[in-house]
């Protein structure tokens, strides 16, 4: 198995995490409520952070 599909799989997962995080964050802008801030900070930011971290990890690691 070549390294490329594994790399691409990681990028896809990173994209899914980041995209989901961004979608959650985007949905919180359409209202003024403490729960919107909580959803942004507790769900959106960690998902995006996880996606960015996985992307960086996929760059520095050498998947076999």
């Amino acid at each position, binding site marked *: 198995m070549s390294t*490329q599909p594994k*790399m*691409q*799989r990681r*990028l*896809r997962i*990173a*994209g*899914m995490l*980041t*995209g989901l*995080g*961004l*979608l959650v*964050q*985007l949905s*919180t*802008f359409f209202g*003024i*409520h*403490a*729960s*919107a*801030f*909580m959803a*942004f*900070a507790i769900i*959106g*930011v960690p998902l*995006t*952070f996880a*996606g*960015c971290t996985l*992307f*960086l990890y996929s760059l520095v690691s050498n998947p076999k």
Partner: protein
Amino acid sequence: MINPTTLTVGVFIVSIVLVAGIILRPEMTVARTGKIMAFIALFLLPIIADSLGLSVHFEKSKQTSFCLSCHVMQPYGKTLYVDDKHYVAAAHFQNHRIPVEEACYTCHTDYVLYGGVRAKLRGIRHVYVQYLGHVPSPENIHLYSAYNNRECLHCHLGARSFEEEPTHSAMHDDLVANQISCLTGGCHDTVHNVGDLAKQKFWKEDH
């Protein structure tokens, strides 16, 4: 000029579209341009979007409706409509002496360097308590420390109505030094008084 929220939503939409491109066609990252796009879509833009989003949320958290979105704060919101000029918060709110859209923040921020940051950190603590902690009853909510005259004098100091009032003139230096509180009994000691709400008449009922 573009509204910051609109700009932020735009950055989020662009980010999501680029991320969707990576999800649907990850093989594009084999090429150099694809690698650059992946870096922008999966790292650079999300970081920028998150920073802008946090800034938008912090700005929104200044709004009166944000503070009153927690059930426990609603009696405090109701006190802004009390039909009694002795209620300091109500008199300021009803006469637009403070921006009505940022009524809570205007009086409960600290007018010092990083005072806004401190107010927002307190706000984050409030949100934490609201969702994950023990929420006290409205009557049992107290300030972290005694209200500082500095917050009142930020607007009132130098104002004719303040300076020409004989009581203020007599204790001017003590008020500025925060030695005598503006909220001292007999002065401006009726602020929110949520415990007395049941007995009050209201200026407006549509709040």
